[in-house]
Protein backbone atom coordinates (compact mmCIF):
# COMPACT_ATOMS: atom_id res chain seq x y z
CA UNK A 1 0.00 0.00 0.00
CA UNK A 2 1.55 3.27 -1.04
CA UNK A 3 0.47 6.78 -0.19
CA UNK A 4 2.46 9.21 -2.26
CA UNK A 5 3.07 12.41 -0.33
CA UNK A 6 2.70 14.14 -3.68
CA UNK A 7 -0.94 13.22 -3.77
CA UNK A 8 -1.48 14.60 -0.30
CA UNK A 9 0.10 17.87 -1.35
CA UNK A 10 -2.10 17.95 -4.39
CA UNK A 11 -5.13 17.41 -2.22
CA UNK A 12 -4.23 19.90 0.49
CA UNK A 13 -2.65 22.80 -1.34
CA UNK A 14 -4.31 22.35 -4.70
CA UNK A 15 -1.06 22.38 -6.60
CA UNK A 16 -0.75 20.36 -9.75
CA UNK A 17 1.28 17.21 -10.13
CA UNK A 18 3.65 19.09 -12.44
CA UNK A 19 4.31 21.76 -9.87
CA UNK A 20 4.91 19.14 -7.22
CA UNK A 21 7.43 17.42 -9.44
CA UNK A 22 9.29 20.62 -10.02
CA UNK A 23 9.98 20.57 -6.31
CA UNK A 24 12.28 17.60 -6.85
CA UNK A 25 15.77 18.92 -6.13
CA UNK A 26 17.48 17.14 -9.08
CA UNK A 27 20.79 16.47 -7.34
CA UNK A 28 22.08 13.69 -9.60
CA UNK A 29 25.52 14.44 -11.03
CA UNK A 30 26.60 13.41 -14.52
CA UNK A 31 28.13 9.94 -14.25
CA UNK A 32 31.68 9.76 -15.66
CA UNK A 33 32.06 7.20 -18.48
CA UNK A 34 34.96 5.69 -16.57
CA UNK A 35 32.74 4.96 -13.57
CA UNK A 36 30.05 3.35 -15.71
CA UNK A 37 32.63 1.19 -17.49
CA UNK A 38 34.09 -0.01 -14.20
CA UNK A 39 30.77 -0.73 -12.57
CA UNK A 40 28.79 -2.26 -15.41
CA UNK A 41 29.14 -6.05 -15.16
CA UNK A 42 25.93 -6.88 -17.03
CA UNK A 43 26.26 -9.43 -19.83
CA UNK A 44 23.17 -9.83 -21.99
CA UNK A 45 22.11 -12.95 -23.94
CA UNK A 46 23.18 -11.31 -27.23
CA UNK A 47 26.69 -10.85 -25.85
CA UNK A 48 26.37 -7.14 -25.09
CA UNK A 49 28.62 -6.38 -22.16
CA UNK A 50 31.10 -9.23 -22.66
CA UNK A 51 34.64 -8.03 -21.94
CA UNK A 52 37.66 -8.87 -24.10
CA UNK A 53 39.18 -12.24 -23.35
CA UNK A 54 39.18 -15.97 -23.95
CA UNK A 55 39.91 -19.30 -22.31
CA UNK A 56 40.07 -23.00 -23.17
CA UNK A 57 38.46 -26.03 -21.57
CA UNK A 58 41.89 -27.25 -20.46
CA UNK A 59 42.74 -23.92 -18.80
CA UNK A 60 39.29 -23.88 -17.23
CA UNK A 61 39.81 -27.27 -15.63
CA UNK A 62 42.77 -25.87 -13.69
CA UNK A 63 40.84 -22.78 -12.64
CA UNK A 64 37.99 -25.00 -11.54
CA UNK A 65 40.18 -27.29 -9.46
CA UNK A 66 41.83 -24.36 -7.71
CA UNK A 67 38.90 -22.01 -7.21
CA UNK A 68 35.63 -23.92 -7.40
CA UNK A 69 36.03 -27.60 -6.59
CA UNK A 70 36.17 -27.16 -2.80
CA UNK A 71 32.50 -26.18 -2.82
CA UNK A 72 31.09 -27.57 -6.07
CA UNK A 73 32.84 -30.97 -6.00
CA UNK A 74 34.90 -32.89 -8.56
CA UNK A 75 33.57 -32.21 -12.06
CA UNK A 76 30.71 -30.15 -10.65
CA UNK A 77 29.12 -32.88 -8.55
CA UNK A 78 28.85 -33.92 -4.93
CA UNK A 79 29.96 -30.65 -3.31
CA UNK A 80 28.30 -28.54 -0.60
CA UNK A 81 27.08 -25.98 -3.16
CA UNK A 82 24.83 -26.36 -6.23
CA UNK A 83 25.61 -29.13 -8.70
CA UNK A 84 27.06 -27.59 -11.84
CA UNK A 85 27.09 -30.68 -14.08
CA UNK A 86 26.33 -34.38 -14.24
CA UNK A 87 22.58 -34.50 -14.76
CA UNK A 88 21.56 -38.14 -14.89
CA UNK A 89 18.03 -37.52 -16.09
CA UNK A 90 15.85 -34.81 -17.61
CA UNK A 91 13.42 -32.10 -16.62
CA UNK A 92 10.29 -34.25 -16.81
CA UNK A 93 11.66 -36.98 -14.53
CA UNK A 94 10.79 -37.30 -10.87
CA UNK A 95 12.77 -35.67 -9.39
CA UNK A 96 13.98 -33.55 -12.30
CA UNK A 97 17.69 -32.82 -12.73
CA UNK A 98 18.22 -29.08 -13.14
CA UNK A 99 21.79 -28.23 -14.08
CA UNK A 100 23.53 -25.85 -16.45
CA UNK A 101 23.25 -28.43 -19.24
CA UNK A 102 19.62 -29.35 -18.72
CA UNK A 103 18.12 -26.07 -17.48
CA UNK A 104 20.09 -22.88 -18.13
CA UNK A 105 18.82 -21.09 -21.25
CA UNK A 106 21.86 -18.87 -21.97
CA UNK A 107 25.61 -19.47 -21.85
CA UNK A 108 26.13 -15.74 -21.22
CA UNK A 109 24.42 -16.12 -17.82
CA UNK A 110 27.13 -18.52 -16.72
CA UNK A 111 29.83 -15.99 -17.54
CA UNK A 112 27.89 -13.11 -16.00
CA UNK A 113 27.18 -14.94 -12.75
CA UNK A 114 30.65 -16.43 -12.34
CA UNK A 115 32.35 -13.10 -12.98
CA UNK A 116 30.20 -11.17 -10.52
CA UNK A 117 29.63 -13.72 -7.77
CA UNK A 118 32.17 -16.55 -7.85
CA UNK A 119 34.25 -17.95 -6.30
CA UNK A 120 31.97 -17.24 -3.36
CA UNK A 121 34.87 -16.94 -0.90
CA UNK A 122 36.90 -14.57 -3.12
CA UNK A 123 34.56 -12.82 -5.55
CA UNK A 124 36.36 -10.70 -8.12
CA UNK A 125 39.60 -12.67 -7.81
CA UNK A 126 39.54 -14.18 -11.32
CA UNK A 127 40.72 -12.44 -14.48
CA UNK A 128 38.32 -12.24 -17.43
CA UNK A 129 40.38 -14.91 -19.19
CA UNK A 130 40.00 -17.20 -16.20
CA UNK A 131 36.23 -16.62 -16.16
CA UNK A 132 36.06 -17.48 -19.89
CA UNK A 133 38.14 -20.59 -19.22
CA UNK A 134 36.06 -21.89 -16.33
CA UNK A 135 32.90 -21.11 -18.32
CA UNK A 136 34.32 -23.24 -21.14
CA UNK A 137 35.12 -26.06 -18.71
CA UNK A 138 31.60 -26.04 -17.23
CA UNK A 139 30.04 -26.01 -20.72
CA UNK A 140 32.28 -28.96 -21.59
CA UNK A 141 31.28 -30.88 -18.45
CA UNK A 142 27.66 -30.34 -19.50
CA UNK A 143 28.33 -31.75 -22.98
CA UNK A 144 27.64 -28.43 -24.69
CA UNK A 145 31.08 -27.89 -26.20
CA UNK A 146 33.97 -30.24 -26.99
CA UNK A 147 37.22 -30.59 -25.04
CA UNK A 148 39.28 -28.74 -27.63
CA UNK A 149 37.22 -25.57 -27.64
CA UNK A 150 38.02 -22.04 -26.64
CA UNK A 151 35.37 -19.64 -25.38
CA UNK A 152 35.71 -15.91 -25.98
CA UNK A 153 33.87 -12.62 -26.27
CA UNK A 154 33.29 -13.52 -29.91
CA UNK A 155 31.65 -16.94 -29.61
CA UNK A 156 30.06 -17.18 -26.16
CA UNK A 157 26.69 -15.67 -27.09
CA UNK A 158 26.33 -18.00 -30.07
CA UNK A 159 26.75 -21.20 -28.05
CA UNK A 160 23.33 -22.86 -28.11
CA UNK A 161 22.03 -24.12 -24.79
CA UNK A 162 19.77 -27.22 -24.88
CA UNK A 163 16.99 -25.60 -22.79
CA UNK A 164 17.00 -22.29 -24.70
CA UNK A 165 13.26 -22.53 -25.41
CA UNK A 166 12.26 -24.06 -22.10
CA UNK A 167 10.74 -20.96 -20.51
CA UNK A 168 7.30 -19.38 -20.53
CA UNK A 169 7.36 -15.61 -19.98
CA UNK A 170 4.47 -15.33 -17.53
CA UNK A 171 4.74 -11.55 -17.21
CA UNK A 172 4.35 -11.05 -20.96
CA UNK A 173 1.18 -13.14 -20.85
CA UNK A 174 -0.40 -11.32 -17.90
CA UNK A 175 -3.35 -9.08 -18.59
CA UNK A 176 -2.56 -5.54 -17.56
Amino acid sequence: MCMPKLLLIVGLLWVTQAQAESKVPKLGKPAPKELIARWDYDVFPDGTGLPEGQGTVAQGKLVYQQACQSCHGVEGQGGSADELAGARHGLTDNPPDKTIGTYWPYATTLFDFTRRAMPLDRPGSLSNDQVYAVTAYLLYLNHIITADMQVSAKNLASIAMPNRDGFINVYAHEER
Partner: protein
Amino acid sequence: MNEQQALTPLAAGGLLDRRAFLQRSLSFSVATLVSSEALATPENGREPWMEKPGAPFSNYGEPAAHERHVIRWTMGNDKALGNGVSWTPLQNLEGIFTPNGLHFERHHNGVPQIDPKQHKLLIHGLVNNSLVFTLEDLLRYPMHSCYCFLECGGNSNAAWHSEPIQTAVGYFHGMASCSEWTGIPLKLLLDEAQVKGRAKWLIVEGADASMMQVSIPLDKALDDCLLALYQNGERIRPENGYPMRLIVPGWEGVLNVKWVRRIHLAAQPVMARNETAKYTELLPSGKARQFTYVMEVKSLITQPSFGYKLPQPGIYQITGLAWSGRGKIAKVEVSADGGKTWLEAELQEPVLSKCFTRFRIPWQWQGQEAILQSRATDETGARQPAREHLLAARGQHGYFHYNAIVSWEISAQGEIKHVYA
Protein backbone atom coordinates in the same frame (compact mmCIF):
# COMPACT_ATOMS: atom_id res chain seq x y z
CA MET B 1 -26.95 -10.33 18.62
CA ASN B 2 -27.54 -11.66 22.15
CA GLU B 3 -25.05 -13.78 24.10
CA GLN B 4 -26.78 -17.01 23.34
CA GLN B 5 -26.62 -16.39 19.63
CA ALA B 6 -22.99 -15.33 19.87
CA LEU B 7 -21.98 -18.66 21.36
CA THR B 8 -23.93 -20.74 18.90
CA PRO B 9 -21.44 -22.17 16.43
CA LEU B 10 -22.08 -20.89 12.92
CA ALA B 11 -20.00 -23.56 11.22
CA ALA B 12 -19.27 -27.18 11.98
CA GLY B 13 -16.29 -27.61 14.28
CA GLY B 14 -17.32 -24.80 16.63
CA LEU B 15 -16.47 -21.59 14.74
CA LEU B 16 -18.33 -18.65 16.25
CA ASP B 17 -19.62 -15.43 14.82
CA ARG B 18 -16.63 -13.15 14.27
CA ARG B 19 -18.30 -10.45 16.37
CA ALA B 20 -18.61 -12.81 19.34
CA PHE B 21 -15.43 -11.47 20.94
CA LEU B 22 -17.34 -8.32 21.70
CA GLN B 23 -19.67 -10.30 23.95
CA ARG B 24 -18.90 -10.41 27.65
CA SER B 25 -19.59 -14.12 28.00
CA LEU B 26 -16.31 -15.02 26.29
CA SER B 27 -14.06 -13.30 28.78
CA PHE B 28 -15.99 -14.84 31.70
CA SER B 29 -15.17 -18.37 30.75
CA VAL B 30 -11.44 -17.58 30.87
CA ALA B 31 -11.62 -15.86 34.26
CA THR B 32 -13.00 -18.93 35.98
CA LEU B 33 -9.97 -20.97 34.92
CA VAL B 34 -7.24 -18.96 36.67
CA SER B 35 -5.71 -21.14 39.41
CA SER B 36 -5.14 -19.94 42.97
CA GLU B 37 -1.38 -20.49 42.53
CA ALA B 38 -1.29 -17.97 39.74
CA LEU B 39 -2.98 -15.49 42.02
CA ALA B 40 -0.39 -15.84 44.86
CA THR B 41 0.93 -12.42 45.84
CA PRO B 42 3.27 -10.93 48.50
CA GLU B 43 1.61 -9.79 51.73
CA ASN B 44 2.13 -6.09 51.06
CA GLY B 45 0.83 -6.53 47.55
CA ARG B 46 4.13 -5.39 45.98
CA GLU B 47 6.00 -7.67 43.60
CA PRO B 48 9.84 -7.63 43.98
CA TRP B 49 10.27 -5.25 41.02
CA MET B 50 7.97 -2.81 42.74
CA GLU B 51 10.26 -2.49 45.77
CA LYS B 52 13.29 -0.91 44.13
CA PRO B 53 13.90 1.65 41.40
CA GLY B 54 13.74 0.25 37.91
CA ALA B 55 16.47 0.12 35.26
CA PRO B 56 17.77 3.38 33.82
CA PHE B 57 17.16 4.73 30.31
CA SER B 58 18.68 3.00 27.34
CA ASN B 59 19.86 4.50 24.07
CA TYR B 60 18.30 1.78 22.01
CA GLY B 61 15.64 -0.51 23.46
CA GLU B 62 15.65 -4.29 23.35
CA PRO B 63 12.95 -6.92 23.70
CA ALA B 64 12.10 -8.02 27.25
CA ALA B 65 14.56 -10.55 28.68
CA HIS B 66 11.73 -13.08 28.87
CA GLU B 67 11.04 -12.72 25.16
CA ARG B 68 14.54 -13.55 23.92
CA HIS B 69 13.30 -16.85 22.54
CA VAL B 70 11.43 -14.94 19.84
CA ILE B 71 14.08 -15.09 17.15
CA ARG B 72 14.66 -15.60 13.45
CA TRP B 73 15.66 -19.14 12.64
CA THR B 74 18.77 -18.98 10.50
CA MET B 75 19.99 -21.52 8.01
CA GLY B 76 23.36 -20.77 6.45
CA ASN B 77 25.60 -22.84 4.24
CA ASP B 78 28.44 -24.48 6.31
CA LYS B 79 31.06 -23.51 3.78
CA ALA B 80 29.64 -20.05 3.19
CA LEU B 81 28.03 -18.65 6.31
CA GLY B 82 26.52 -15.66 4.53
CA ASN B 83 24.66 -17.82 2.05
CA GLY B 84 21.23 -18.87 3.23
CA VAL B 85 18.06 -17.57 4.82
CA SER B 86 16.44 -16.65 8.11
CA TRP B 87 12.73 -16.84 8.86
CA THR B 88 10.38 -14.44 10.64
CA PRO B 89 8.79 -16.20 13.67
CA LEU B 90 5.23 -15.48 12.53
CA GLN B 91 3.87 -17.76 15.27
CA ASN B 92 5.14 -15.37 17.97
CA LEU B 93 4.03 -12.09 16.44
CA GLU B 94 0.79 -10.12 16.42
CA GLY B 95 -0.57 -7.24 14.38
CA ILE B 96 0.68 -6.73 10.83
CA PHE B 97 4.15 -5.16 11.04
CA THR B 98 7.32 -7.14 11.55
CA PRO B 99 9.88 -5.82 14.04
CA ASN B 100 13.00 -4.81 12.12
CA GLY B 101 15.24 -7.30 13.90
CA LEU B 102 12.90 -10.14 12.93
CA HIS B 103 12.43 -9.35 9.23
CA PHE B 104 13.31 -12.41 7.14
CA GLU B 105 16.62 -12.51 5.30
CA ARG B 106 17.92 -14.08 2.14
CA HIS B 107 21.51 -13.29 1.37
CA HIS B 108 23.51 -14.79 -1.45
CA ASN B 109 26.89 -13.90 0.01
CA GLY B 110 26.49 -12.23 3.38
CA VAL B 111 25.62 -8.75 4.62
CA PRO B 112 27.98 -6.12 3.22
CA GLN B 113 29.34 -3.59 5.72
CA ILE B 114 28.69 -0.49 3.65
CA ASP B 115 30.16 2.92 4.43
CA PRO B 116 27.25 5.24 3.63
CA LYS B 117 29.68 8.04 2.70
CA GLN B 118 31.25 5.87 0.01
CA HIS B 119 28.02 4.37 -1.29
CA LYS B 120 26.67 5.79 -4.55
CA LEU B 121 23.70 5.07 -6.77
CA LEU B 122 24.31 5.01 -10.53
CA ILE B 123 21.55 5.24 -13.13
CA HIS B 124 22.79 4.58 -16.68
CA GLY B 125 22.08 2.81 -19.96
CA LEU B 126 19.14 3.96 -22.09
CA VAL B 127 18.82 7.38 -20.46
CA ASN B 128 19.64 10.87 -21.68
CA ASN B 129 21.49 11.69 -18.46
CA SER B 130 23.56 9.04 -16.72
CA LEU B 131 23.50 10.12 -13.09
CA VAL B 132 25.25 9.35 -9.81
CA PHE B 133 23.64 10.12 -6.47
CA THR B 134 25.15 10.16 -3.02
CA LEU B 135 23.12 9.22 0.02
CA GLU B 136 23.27 12.82 1.16
CA ASP B 137 21.68 13.87 -2.15
CA LEU B 138 18.93 11.28 -1.86
CA LEU B 139 17.98 12.25 1.67
CA ARG B 140 16.84 15.63 0.31
CA TYR B 141 14.26 14.16 -2.08
CA PRO B 142 10.52 14.09 -1.36
CA MET B 143 9.63 10.76 0.18
CA HIS B 144 6.60 8.63 0.76
CA SER B 145 5.76 5.40 2.56
CA CYS B 146 4.74 2.01 1.24
CA TYR B 147 3.07 -0.24 3.76
CA CYS B 148 3.76 -3.56 2.18
CA PHE B 149 4.68 -7.16 2.68
CA LEU B 150 7.85 -8.64 1.30
CA GLU B 151 7.80 -12.34 0.50
CA CYS B 152 10.59 -14.45 -0.92
CA GLY B 153 9.55 -16.30 -4.08
CA GLY B 154 10.88 -19.43 -2.35
CA ASN B 155 8.76 -18.95 0.77
CA SER B 156 6.87 -22.07 1.94
CA ASN B 157 8.91 -24.29 -0.37
CA ALA B 158 8.90 -27.13 2.19
CA ALA B 159 5.18 -27.47 1.49
CA TRP B 160 5.92 -28.95 -1.95
CA HIS B 161 7.38 -32.02 -0.18
CA SER B 162 5.23 -35.16 -0.10
CA GLU B 163 5.26 -35.28 3.72
CA PRO B 164 4.07 -32.27 5.72
CA ILE B 165 6.99 -30.72 7.61
CA GLN B 166 6.51 -30.52 11.39
CA THR B 167 7.80 -27.14 12.41
CA ALA B 168 6.47 -23.79 13.57
CA VAL B 169 4.59 -21.81 10.93
CA GLY B 170 7.24 -19.08 10.75
CA TYR B 171 9.94 -21.60 10.06
CA PHE B 172 8.51 -22.66 6.77
CA HIS B 173 6.20 -19.77 5.80
CA GLY B 174 8.20 -16.99 7.47
CA MET B 175 10.14 -15.75 4.47
CA ALA B 176 7.41 -13.13 4.53
CA SER B 177 7.47 -9.95 6.59
CA CYS B 178 5.73 -6.59 6.48
CA SER B 179 6.99 -3.06 7.08
CA GLU B 180 6.47 0.59 6.47
CA TRP B 181 9.15 1.37 3.89
CA THR B 182 9.89 5.05 3.33
CA GLY B 183 11.91 6.49 0.51
CA ILE B 184 11.91 8.10 -2.90
CA PRO B 185 9.51 7.06 -5.66
CA LEU B 186 11.80 5.52 -8.26
CA LYS B 187 9.91 7.44 -10.91
CA LEU B 188 11.38 10.74 -9.67
CA LEU B 189 14.93 9.50 -10.16
CA LEU B 190 14.17 7.87 -13.51
CA ASP B 191 12.52 11.07 -14.75
CA GLU B 192 15.59 13.02 -13.72
CA ALA B 193 17.74 10.65 -15.78
CA GLN B 194 15.25 10.89 -18.70
CA VAL B 195 14.58 7.35 -19.78
CA LYS B 196 14.75 6.79 -23.55
CA GLY B 197 11.79 5.36 -25.42
CA ARG B 198 13.51 2.09 -26.25
CA ALA B 199 14.09 1.24 -22.60
CA LYS B 200 11.75 -1.47 -21.33
CA TRP B 201 13.69 -2.96 -18.41
CA LEU B 202 15.74 -1.97 -15.40
CA ILE B 203 18.68 -4.16 -14.44
CA VAL B 204 19.07 -3.47 -10.74
CA GLU B 205 22.20 -4.51 -8.86
CA GLY B 206 23.25 -4.57 -5.21
CA ALA B 207 26.59 -3.69 -3.63
CA ASP B 208 26.95 -7.08 -1.94
CA ALA B 209 29.73 -9.59 -2.60
CA SER B 210 27.53 -11.44 -5.10
CA MET B 211 26.59 -8.22 -6.92
CA MET B 212 23.07 -9.67 -7.00
CA GLN B 213 21.20 -8.35 -10.03
CA VAL B 214 17.74 -8.85 -11.54
CA SER B 215 15.66 -7.39 -14.36
CA ILE B 216 12.49 -5.45 -13.56
CA PRO B 217 9.95 -4.19 -16.13
CA LEU B 218 10.08 -0.40 -16.54
CA ASP B 219 6.26 -0.22 -16.25
CA LYS B 220 6.39 -1.51 -12.70
CA ALA B 221 9.28 0.77 -11.77
CA LEU B 222 7.33 3.82 -12.91
CA ASP B 223 4.14 2.60 -11.28
CA ASP B 224 4.93 2.06 -7.61
CA CYS B 225 8.56 1.12 -6.94
CA LEU B 226 10.40 2.89 -4.16
CA LEU B 227 14.05 3.49 -3.39
CA ALA B 228 13.66 2.91 0.34
CA LEU B 229 15.92 4.48 2.94
CA TYR B 230 13.83 3.82 6.05
CA GLN B 231 12.16 0.74 7.48
CA ASN B 232 9.51 1.20 10.16
CA GLY B 233 10.74 4.69 10.85
CA GLU B 234 14.45 4.03 11.26
CA ARG B 235 17.18 3.76 8.66
CA ILE B 236 17.15 0.34 7.03
CA ARG B 237 19.10 -2.31 8.93
CA PRO B 238 22.28 -3.69 7.29
CA GLU B 239 20.68 -7.08 6.66
CA ASN B 240 17.76 -5.40 4.94
CA GLY B 241 19.78 -3.30 2.55
CA TYR B 242 21.42 -0.40 4.36
CA PRO B 243 21.75 2.27 3.20
CA MET B 244 19.16 1.79 0.42
CA ARG B 245 17.09 -0.92 -1.18
CA LEU B 246 14.47 -1.25 -3.83
CA ILE B 247 10.87 -1.92 -2.85
CA VAL B 248 8.72 -3.55 -5.53
CA PRO B 249 5.28 -3.76 -3.87
CA GLY B 250 3.53 -7.12 -4.17
CA TRP B 251 6.23 -8.74 -6.27
CA GLU B 252 8.62 -11.49 -5.28
CA GLY B 253 11.31 -10.71 -2.73
CA VAL B 254 14.35 -11.17 -4.97
CA LEU B 255 13.35 -8.12 -7.02
CA ASN B 256 13.53 -5.90 -3.95
CA VAL B 257 17.28 -5.55 -4.43
CA LYS B 258 19.15 -4.70 -1.23
CA TRP B 259 22.19 -2.40 -1.01
CA VAL B 260 21.23 -1.16 -4.46
CA ARG B 261 23.94 0.77 -6.25
CA ARG B 262 23.28 0.49 -9.95
CA ILE B 263 20.20 0.76 -12.19
CA HIS B 264 20.82 -0.03 -15.84
CA LEU B 265 18.05 0.92 -18.30
CA ALA B 266 17.90 -1.63 -21.11
CA ALA B 267 15.72 -2.82 -23.97
CA GLN B 268 15.86 -6.46 -22.82
CA PRO B 269 16.17 -8.38 -19.56
CA VAL B 270 19.71 -9.44 -18.67
CA MET B 271 18.67 -13.07 -18.01
CA ALA B 272 20.56 -13.18 -14.74
CA ARG B 273 21.13 -16.43 -12.90
CA ASN B 274 18.41 -15.40 -10.43
CA GLU B 275 15.80 -15.08 -13.17
CA THR B 276 16.73 -18.19 -15.16
CA ALA B 277 18.43 -20.94 -13.13
CA LYS B 278 16.60 -19.82 -9.98
CA TYR B 279 13.24 -18.13 -9.28
CA THR B 280 11.70 -19.94 -12.25
CA GLU B 281 9.22 -22.78 -11.76
CA LEU B 282 9.62 -26.06 -13.56
CA LEU B 283 6.28 -27.54 -14.62
CA PRO B 284 5.52 -31.25 -15.15
CA SER B 285 5.68 -30.58 -18.92
CA GLY B 286 9.37 -29.75 -18.63
CA LYS B 287 8.75 -26.07 -19.41
CA ALA B 288 9.39 -23.51 -16.72
CA ARG B 289 7.44 -20.42 -15.70
CA GLN B 290 9.67 -17.33 -15.84
CA PHE B 291 9.12 -13.73 -14.67
CA THR B 292 6.41 -14.88 -12.28
CA TYR B 293 6.55 -11.65 -10.36
CA VAL B 294 3.30 -11.31 -8.43
CA MET B 295 3.07 -12.99 -5.05
CA GLU B 296 -0.42 -14.47 -5.26
CA VAL B 297 -3.12 -14.36 -2.59
CA LYS B 298 -2.22 -16.31 0.53
CA SER B 299 -3.15 -16.72 4.17
CA LEU B 300 -2.21 -18.84 7.14
CA ILE B 301 -3.29 -19.29 10.73
CA THR B 302 -0.55 -18.18 13.11
CA GLN B 303 -2.47 -19.03 16.32
CA PRO B 304 -3.20 -21.73 17.25
CA SER B 305 -0.53 -23.44 15.15
CA PHE B 306 2.21 -26.07 15.33
CA GLY B 307 4.16 -26.00 18.58
CA TYR B 308 1.21 -25.00 20.78
CA LYS B 309 -1.06 -27.24 22.78
CA LEU B 310 -4.61 -26.28 23.60
CA PRO B 311 -4.69 -26.68 27.41
CA GLN B 312 -8.38 -27.52 27.71
CA PRO B 313 -11.64 -27.25 25.82
CA GLY B 314 -12.98 -23.73 25.66
CA ILE B 315 -12.97 -20.64 23.55
CA TYR B 316 -9.93 -19.75 21.50
CA GLN B 317 -9.13 -16.96 19.12
CA ILE B 318 -8.03 -18.19 15.72
CA THR B 319 -5.87 -15.53 14.13
CA GLY B 320 -3.53 -15.24 11.20
CA LEU B 321 -2.26 -13.22 8.28
CA ALA B 322 -3.44 -12.80 4.72
CA TRP B 323 -1.87 -10.92 1.84
CA SER B 324 -1.93 -10.58 -1.93
CA GLY B 325 0.48 -9.03 -4.39
CA ARG B 326 -2.51 -7.98 -6.51
CA GLY B 327 -4.17 -5.64 -4.03
CA LYS B 328 -6.31 -5.70 -0.91
CA ILE B 329 -7.59 -8.76 0.87
CA ALA B 330 -11.36 -8.92 0.35
CA LYS B 331 -12.14 -11.76 2.76
CA VAL B 332 -10.66 -14.59 4.75
CA GLU B 333 -12.71 -17.66 5.51
CA VAL B 334 -11.81 -20.12 8.25
CA SER B 335 -12.72 -23.78 8.56
CA ALA B 336 -12.45 -25.99 11.64
CA ASP B 337 -13.51 -29.18 9.88
CA GLY B 338 -10.88 -29.53 7.19
CA GLY B 339 -12.65 -27.41 4.62
CA LYS B 340 -16.18 -28.86 4.71
CA THR B 341 -17.67 -25.66 6.10
CA TRP B 342 -16.26 -22.13 6.13
CA LEU B 343 -17.02 -18.99 8.08
CA GLU B 344 -15.81 -15.47 7.33
CA ALA B 345 -13.27 -14.05 9.76
CA GLU B 346 -13.03 -10.46 10.93
CA LEU B 347 -10.44 -8.42 9.04
CA GLN B 348 -8.61 -6.04 11.34
CA GLU B 349 -8.38 -2.48 10.08
CA PRO B 350 -6.51 -1.12 8.28
CA VAL B 351 -6.84 -3.43 5.29
CA LEU B 352 -4.19 -2.13 2.89
CA SER B 353 -3.21 -3.09 -0.63
CA LYS B 354 -0.20 -5.45 -0.92
CA CYS B 355 0.15 -5.43 2.85
CA PHE B 356 -0.33 -8.02 5.59
CA THR B 357 -3.93 -8.14 6.79
CA ARG B 358 -4.68 -9.60 10.23
CA PHE B 359 -7.76 -11.80 10.54
CA ARG B 360 -9.48 -13.17 13.65
CA ILE B 361 -12.37 -15.44 14.49
CA PRO B 362 -13.50 -17.03 17.77
CA TRP B 363 -13.67 -20.80 18.04
CA GLN B 364 -15.24 -23.04 20.64
CA TRP B 365 -13.18 -26.20 20.94
CA GLN B 366 -15.01 -29.05 22.62
CA GLY B 367 -12.09 -31.46 22.77
CA GLN B 368 -12.79 -33.05 19.42
CA GLU B 369 -10.30 -33.69 16.63
CA ALA B 370 -10.34 -30.75 14.24
CA ILE B 371 -8.53 -29.40 11.20
CA LEU B 372 -8.08 -25.64 11.07
CA GLN B 373 -7.64 -23.89 7.74
CA SER B 374 -7.86 -20.38 6.34
CA ARG B 375 -8.58 -19.32 2.77
CA ALA B 376 -8.11 -15.77 1.49
CA THR B 377 -9.71 -13.99 -1.46
CA ASP B 378 -8.30 -10.71 -2.77
CA GLU B 379 -10.06 -7.73 -4.31
CA THR B 380 -9.48 -9.04 -7.84
CA GLY B 381 -11.45 -12.17 -6.91
CA ALA B 382 -8.39 -14.42 -6.85
CA ARG B 383 -8.80 -17.11 -4.18
CA GLN B 384 -6.12 -19.07 -2.39
CA PRO B 385 -6.04 -22.61 -3.84
CA ALA B 386 -6.30 -25.95 -2.07
CA ARG B 387 -2.96 -27.76 -2.06
CA GLU B 388 -4.20 -30.46 -4.42
CA HIS B 389 -5.27 -27.82 -6.95
CA LEU B 390 -1.95 -26.04 -6.80
CA LEU B 391 -0.11 -29.32 -7.28
CA ALA B 392 -2.42 -30.31 -10.16
CA ALA B 393 -1.59 -27.04 -11.92
CA ARG B 394 2.11 -26.82 -11.12
CA GLY B 395 3.37 -30.30 -10.28
CA GLN B 396 5.67 -30.83 -7.31
CA HIS B 397 8.97 -29.43 -8.52
CA GLY B 398 8.21 -25.75 -9.02
CA TYR B 399 9.82 -24.87 -5.69
CA PHE B 400 8.80 -21.19 -5.91
CA HIS B 401 5.44 -19.43 -5.43
CA TYR B 402 3.65 -21.85 -3.09
CA ASN B 403 0.42 -20.22 -1.85
CA ALA B 404 -1.92 -23.10 -1.02
CA ILE B 405 -4.16 -23.43 2.03
CA VAL B 406 -2.31 -24.41 5.24
CA SER B 407 -3.88 -27.02 7.56
CA TRP B 408 -3.36 -27.60 11.29
CA GLU B 409 -4.73 -30.80 12.80
CA ILE B 410 -5.81 -30.64 16.44
CA SER B 411 -5.83 -33.94 18.33
CA ALA B 412 -8.32 -34.76 21.10
CA GLN B 413 -5.46 -33.91 23.51
CA GLY B 414 -5.09 -30.47 21.97
CA GLU B 415 -1.80 -31.19 20.21
CA ILE B 416 -1.25 -29.48 16.88
CA LYS B 417 0.25 -31.07 13.78
CA HIS B 418 0.85 -29.77 10.28
CA VAL B 419 -1.13 -31.87 7.79
CA TYR B 420 -2.12 -31.79 4.14
CA ALA B 421 -5.91 -31.84 4.09
